[in-house]
């Protein structure tokens, strides 16, 4: 199964969509239970280790992303709205060791929607970046020949 990515025109949103062959209640459970999140959130080769989890509106998920070389990154999710088994919204960012939000690292707001589709469940993640109106521009420009040539030259230099 492939993940489908879209960048919204004139918006600072990146959308990731994926279908899973499982009932919606099960997918929801894997998304909203700390022990289960720790099993897949990773991402490889990282391992997510939950430190504190409180899945409710106004609640949070504090976890550490542990790297293969002993590096650790503190991550924070603040849950905003929850419609059980249908959708939730959250703030996602990096944290300092005292769980205060790191403002110099990229952060985003998420809306995660779960839709039943026959015996599949469609998961749609809408990432809204703090100041990423330029996402689209970057992708568009990446396709421009002049820019690609510039990149080729750069690659040759590196």
């Amino acid at each position, binding site marked *: 199964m492939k993940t489908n990515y879209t960048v919204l025109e004139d918006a600072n949103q990146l959308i*990731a969509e994926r279908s899973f062959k499982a009932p919606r209640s099960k997918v929801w459970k894997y998304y909203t239970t700390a022990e289960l999140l720790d099993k897949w959130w*990773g991402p490889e080769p990282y391992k997510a280790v939950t430190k504190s989890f409180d899945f409710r509106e106004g609640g949070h998920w504090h976890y550490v992303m542990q790297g293969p070389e002993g590096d650790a990154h503190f991550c924070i999710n603040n849950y905003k709205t929850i419609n059980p088994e249908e959708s939730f919204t959250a703030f996602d960012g990096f944290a300092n060791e005292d769980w205060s939000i790191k403002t110099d690292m990229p952060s985003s707001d998420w809306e995660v929607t779960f839709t039943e589709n026959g015996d599949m469940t469609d998961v749609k993640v809408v990432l809204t970046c703090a100041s990423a109106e330029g996402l689209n*521009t970057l992708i568009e420009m990446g396709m421009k020949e002049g820019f690609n040539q510039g990149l080729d030259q750069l690659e040759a230099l590196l």
Partner: protein
Amino acid sequence: MVEYAINLDSVFSSLADATRRDILSRVSQHPQSVGELADAHKSISFAAVAKHITVLEDAQLVIKKREGRYQIISANPKTMHQAAQVLQHYQALWDARFDALDKLLT
């Protein structure tokens, strides 16, 4: 974890403006003088165009070079490349996550 060598906020916020996106698009095709860029944006003042260029320069998206009596603006592919890498990093992250979830669910 990717180390962000560029200031992503300044990159993305400087790209949030349509005039600046247009300036960057023009200079990424070929380097141009400040005067040429001002001519292409007649609806705004020369000073305003110069200010937009400074914002792009601060974000390291463009490089300003003096050639005789002209100031030549060119795109900085290094910053563009790094920003594009950040996007690829996001995609790789979600691919890995969803693959892992898929394995557990089925």
